Each structure stands twice: as C-alpha cells, then as structure tokens.
C-alpha cells in the first residue's frame, strides 16, 4: 500500500469510526503480542490493558497476553508480519520496530503493519546504586572519568535504546563506559542493586520498586522537561524531583513510544474497532493509575497524526542509530 492510500484509509477510518459501536467485532480471543520477556515494561502494560478491558467490559471476547520476546523481540515482529489479515492479534510496540531492522537486518518494516494508536510515551532515567557517594550527574561523570577501569553500564539488549543513550552520554561527557547488555530491564535493575554494574538507564517502571526501597538513586531524566507527577514515590522524592539531564549539564534526550499495531491488510472496520477500543482503554481508571505509577507520559494519537509522528520518530531513531554506529552494513 502506498503512503498516500495508507494515509487516506487512516483518515477514512477516523471519519467513519465515530459511532461508539463499531461494525466489526472480534469473533475469537484477541492476542496482545508482547515483544519482550515476562515482567518487562511491555508485559506489564499489556497485562494492565488486559485487566482494564476485562474489568470495564470493553470487549466481548477475552484478551490474552502472548509473550514473544525471543530473539530480543524479533520473534514478535516476524509473528505480526506473517499474520497478515488476521485482526485478532495486536502488537504493543516500542522503539524496537525502528531499531531492530537496522542493527540486526531483520526483514521487517513497521509500514507493513497497520498502526492503530500511540498510547503513551516512556521515559528513561539515569540510575546509580544508592550506596555510592555521588549525589548528582556531575559527580557521577567525574567518578566515571577518574575510575581506572571504565564504569559498567547495564541495559536491555544490544544496539538498542539503552546502548544508544550510553553512547550519547559518552559523546557528550567524554567519560567511557563498558556497556553490558542484559536480557531485560528487570535484570539490569537487580544487577545494579547488587553492585555488579555502576549505572543503568532503565525506564521508570523497571526500577520503580528498587527506587522505592531506597536501593538505587535517580540521577536525571532524559527528557526536555521533568516528569509531571508530584506525589511522593519514595520517602523523600516524587518523580518531579528528578532533574532533567539537560539541567544537570548532560544534553541528551530520548522518549520512547508505546503504540498498538495490527497486522497488515486488515479491513477499515477492523481497524476502527481497535482505534475505538484503545481510546476507551486510555479513559479507564486502570490506565490512568498505571501512567502515574510507572511515570509514563499519557499521550494518545491515531489516524493521520500517528502516521506523521511515526514517520518523524523513525527518522529520529534512524539518525541516532547511524550516529552511534549501530547500523549493520
């Protein structure tokens, strides 16, 4: 499908999906495909949606979470690609959809899927172990520079968002890090608590519990502005108390999309059903709670706005990957 007709169908879908009851409805259980392992940020979000849909009776058919985190999430992408025309599967996607095809030459392009809606944007925070003496980014970078062996930075996967952030932190500060790719953010969190690594750049949700337990320190958030939640999370700090990295003199920014996609070649009716379903999900108390608790930015986009955003976001990510030298030749 060409870019133009795709946009046109998206617009059409938006125009004709206005009535609350869509013409098409799933006839069998809907699979929500997670491109990551159990307990990771995507999995948690999928389970929240599953519960929100079930508790608020948003859909007649049940929703099941299907974990396809094999091959660093490539499994899920290939699975969606090969499910063309099957509207009973919906992918909960993140920046992986741009990065994996570049770094590992996976035969996949998100344009082959049907974008439904962007449901949130996720943050990245620079974390260190609470027992370490450094109080802010400056102290941390100084310590990293002064250290005999480079500091160990843990993260999820190789040549992906976490390592991109590490490379850009190196470029902006001149400090050197050894990047350790773990299988999940949860693993990177416990390894930081156990002092096996010096820092990680986990999403808020991945480090939330160890932060609340006072085992890790939040140094800065990689966004233009602070996270806008003022309720205390730890004894002394709220999400808003974490400075931005730019305030701290580390000018690196990155936000990651959380978006829903259907396989390619589904009908407009089918797409309209899901646009409506996820719109309703974002209005449930479960969703709102989750956004605040896990410090996500509640963003909602669909139709043309989403298509435009995806194009731009893809360009940004591709540029970052190129600059970091992670694009496979």
């Amino acid at each position: 499908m060409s870019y133009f007709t795709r946009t046109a169908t998206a617009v059409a879908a938006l125009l004709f999906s206005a009535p609350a009851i869509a013409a098409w409805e799933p006839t069998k259980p809907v699979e929500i495909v997670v491109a990551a392992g159990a307990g990771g940020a995507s999995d948690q979000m999928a389970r929240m949606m599953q519960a929100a849909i079930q508790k608020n009776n948003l859909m007649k058919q049940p929703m099941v979470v299907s974990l396809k985190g094999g091959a660093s999430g490539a499994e899920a992408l290939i699975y969606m690609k090969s499910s063309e025309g099957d509207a009973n599967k919906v992918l909960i996607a993140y920046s992986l959809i741009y990065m994996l095809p570049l770094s590992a030459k996976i035969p996949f392009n998100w344009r082959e899927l049907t974008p439904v809606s962007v449901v949130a944007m996720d943050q990245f925070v620079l974390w260190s172990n609470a027992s370490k003496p450094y109080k802010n980014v400056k102290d941390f970078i100084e310590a990293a520079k002064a250290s005999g062996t480079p500091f160990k930075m843990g993260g999820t996967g190789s040549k992906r968002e976490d390592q991109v952030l590490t490379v850009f932190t190196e470029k902006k500060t001149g400090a050197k890090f050894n990047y350790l790719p773990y299988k999940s953010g949860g693993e990177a969190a416990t390894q930081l608590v156990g002092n096996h690594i010096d820092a990680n750049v986990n999403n808020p949700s991945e480090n939330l519990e160890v932060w609340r337990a006072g085992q890790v320190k939040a140094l800065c958030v990689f966004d233009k502005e602070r996270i806008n939640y003022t309720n205390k999370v730890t004894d002394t700090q709220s999400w808003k108390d974490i400075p931005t990295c730019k305030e701290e003199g580390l000018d690196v920014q990155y936000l990651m999309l959380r978006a829903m996609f259907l396989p390619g070649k589904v009908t407009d009716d089918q797409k309209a059903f899901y646009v409506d379903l996820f719109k309703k999900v974002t209005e449930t108390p479960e969703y709102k709670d989750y956004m605040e608790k896990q410090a996500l930015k509640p963003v909602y986009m669909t139709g043309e706005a989403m298509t435009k955003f995806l194009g731009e976001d893809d360009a940004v990510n591709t540029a970052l990957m190129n600059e970091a030298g992670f694009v496979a030749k």
Partner: protein
Amino acid sequence: MEALGLLMQGFGVLLTWKILALMMVGLVLGIFVGVLPGLGGPNGVAILLPLTFTMDPTSAIVMLSCIYWGALFGGAITSILFNIPGEAWSVATTFDGYPMAQQGKAAEALTAAFTSSFIGSFAAVLLITFLAPAISSFALKFGPPEFFAVYLLTFCSFVGLGREDKHKTIISMSLGLLLAGIGLDTVSGQLRMTFGSSDMLRGVNFLVAVIGLFGISEILLTMEERLALRGHAAKISLRTVWQVWTDMPRYWVTLLRSSAIGCWLGITPGGAIAASFMGYNLAKRFSKDKESFGKGRIEGVFAPETAAHASGTAALLPMLALGIPGSGTAAILLGGLMVWGLNPGPLLFVEHKDFVWGLIASMYLGNIVGLILVLSTVPVFAAVLRVPFAAIAPMIVVSCAIGAFAIQNAMFDIWLMLVFGVIGYVFKKIGIPLAPLTLALVLGNRAEDAFRLSMIGAEGNLGVFWSNKLVGTITTLAIVLLFWPILDRLIAGISKARRPARA
C-alpha cells in the same frame, strides 16, 4: 518467632470452604495441563490467568499457585509413563522413571516421584518461611561471573560424574551448545546461523527439542521393536504406596542432599533444570551401586524430583523478593501479581504482609492436598499403560505435535520436532547420551551471555572468576568435578601406595 505468627495468620486467611474449593479446582486443572506434553505449567497458568481477574488477590493467587503445584506434580506423569518430559526439569526423572514403568513398576515410580516432589517443595517452603530476607540478599550477590560459575559447575559435573563415556558426553554437549547459538545473539545484537530464514530467528526452542528427542524417538524405537509399550499393568493399591514410603527413609541422605542442592540452585534463576541434573548425578556418584542407575532404580527418581521441586519452589522467592522469575511458570505468576497491583520487589514483604504470608501458607496446604490428590489418582494414570500401543501411539504423536506447535504457534516447530525425533533415535542406537545435549540447549545461551558479560566487565581478565570467595569456590569446585575421574584414580593410587608402605 515473628515468621511463625505471621504464618499462622496466613493459615487463618486460607481455611475457608471457598478457598479450599478453589485449591482443589486449581490442583485438578494443574495436573491436567501438566499431563499434556508441551502444554505444561507456563502455558496452563497463562491460559487460566484471566479466570482470576474477577477474584480478590488472595483467592486468585491461591488458585494460581495450586495450578502451579498441580502442573509440577503432573509433569512427572508423562516423564515416567511415556518418556516425555513436560518441563525442562523433568528430563532427569525419565532416566530411571521410564525404565521402572517398563519393568511394570509404574505405580512405584509415580508414588516415588510424587512423594519426593512433596518433600522437595516442603523443604523449600520451610526455607522461604524462615530465611526469606536473608536469602534475597544472597541472590543479589550473583553477577555475571557468579552465574557463569554455576553454569560451568553444572556442565562440569555432567562430564566428570556422568556414567557414559566421556567423549560421547562431550560430543552430545557440544552439539547442544552449537544449537543453542542459533538465533539473535543478545550480546552483539546480531543474527547467528539463521541462514536468512525467519523461522530460525527464534532459535531452537528447548521444549520442541525435548519433545522430539525423548517422545518421538521413543515411539520410533518402540515401533521398531515390538509395537508395544513395554509397561505392564501394575498392581496398584495402598500397599504399593505404603511400600514406597517405608522404603524411603533408607534414602534419607539422597533426599536431604537433593533438597539442599535444589534450594541453593533455586535461588539463582534457571536453577531448577541444573538442580535436577545435579541431584541425579550426585546421587549416582555417591551410590554404592552405580551400575543400576538408569536401569530403573527408585533412588534415580527420588533424587532429581526432590531437587527439581525444591528449586522450583525456591524459585518463587527471588520472584517475590526481587521480581526475577526463576522459571517460566513463575514468570506468568509474576505477571498476575502485577495485574492485582502487587509489585514484586523488596517492599512486597513489608507492604503486603497478608498477601505474602497467605501465599506461603497456601504453599503448605497446596502441597499436602496435592499429594493426597495425585496419590489417589495414580491408578487412573498407570492404567493408561494398559491401553494397546497401536491406539495410544498416534495419540501421543498428535499431542506431541500440538504441544510443539502451541509453544510458539509455529508450524516450523513441528518439523523441527520430527527432526529431533530422528536425531534422538539415531543417538539412542549409537549410544550417545541425550541428556548433555538437552542441558547444553537450555543453559548454553545463558552460560555464553554470562561469560561474555563477565569479560566485558573485567576487560578480558579471566581472574574475574576467582575475584571473590563465592565465585572462586564455585569455579574451583567446577574444575575439580571436571577432572574428578582422574583425581579419584590418583587419590586411590596414592592411598594404595601408602598402605603397603605402612604395613
């Protein structure tokens, strides 16, 4: 003691008719999914998870954990009756369990498996009850070098203590390591050995390989030989159960050793598989009658089952205290916890005491009720062996194929299963052991990742494997076990040389 008081409170929460009924339902469902090869614990729990969304968290987790116990018990049934391990850690149970069934001692083998599962889980639950806070800080000591040392220990104990020819063990293990390398490499983010096929991208799924290697190859062998499952209708009565139980205290050393190994390895993620193999190998190593292992010795069922279930249960501890699931099923339970707004982590034990102790109490109750339930149904399961082979073989093949397909919803996996079936058949014919291949297939990737992460962190210095007491001890032990046969002979030689000198 505070723990005891809290535990009693937990029991208080559970002892209502509603909860007890939910437990029974959970256990029966669990046994059912455990018996179907390939469906197994993780898939079963995943399918049944949404059932619990409308319940309150305590009822929900009690039901889910009972499904978990049921699946653990159920996994042993197919291993013993059909030589098809339902879960990774049931592989070692097939070594002696299946020969026992062939000799007509299926009921004894099943009773032994269930009882030792019970003992193993019970030991681990005791551990969780009294040592929860201390253990979670122990688990935090494990960085990449420590993880690698544990995997190395498992591999080395296999080569050093195994009964088979060393070179055959190594051939089989190397093939497993090679197969484990297929797919996307976590450390470099590159594809390896996929040859441009998107089916190979996922790598070789362990369960698919196991269903083929053990299940399909067994069917092939049986077809060739006699077209009959060599199990006979076993006499099943309370007496059989009683006999096994009275026989059991003789093996107290094995049971104790396996429980200890299981508890220790369960705390490190992925430990249950390593634990079952290690429990089996050590039991064999310290037995006076090594030759009878693998030919239907009851101790060979006790050892791996106790260790696997001790570690399967202990694996719940890092999940609750740290949020790291130790097994596939534990991972699904983790997802469940989050749905109910309970975030596993260091604060769970502080903020949700009622829930945690309710869960621990349900482990005790679920285990006891489960044991009674499976023992009373042993006759039903053992009766399966009386069905003619011609009728049951197609059913097994079909259920294997469904199992292999269901794991990843991939047709390719059914072909892969058949290929592994042929490999398994050939290996059995030429006497190459299958267990090292399976072990390497499960742990190969993790061992490789742990090794490379250690190297990145230490800038290529191998000294990192002796950099602290914990990792140093495990690494040294691993190397000693690898060369054990040589060392054993040396020690024997020296003491022999000394004795005449003294005389």
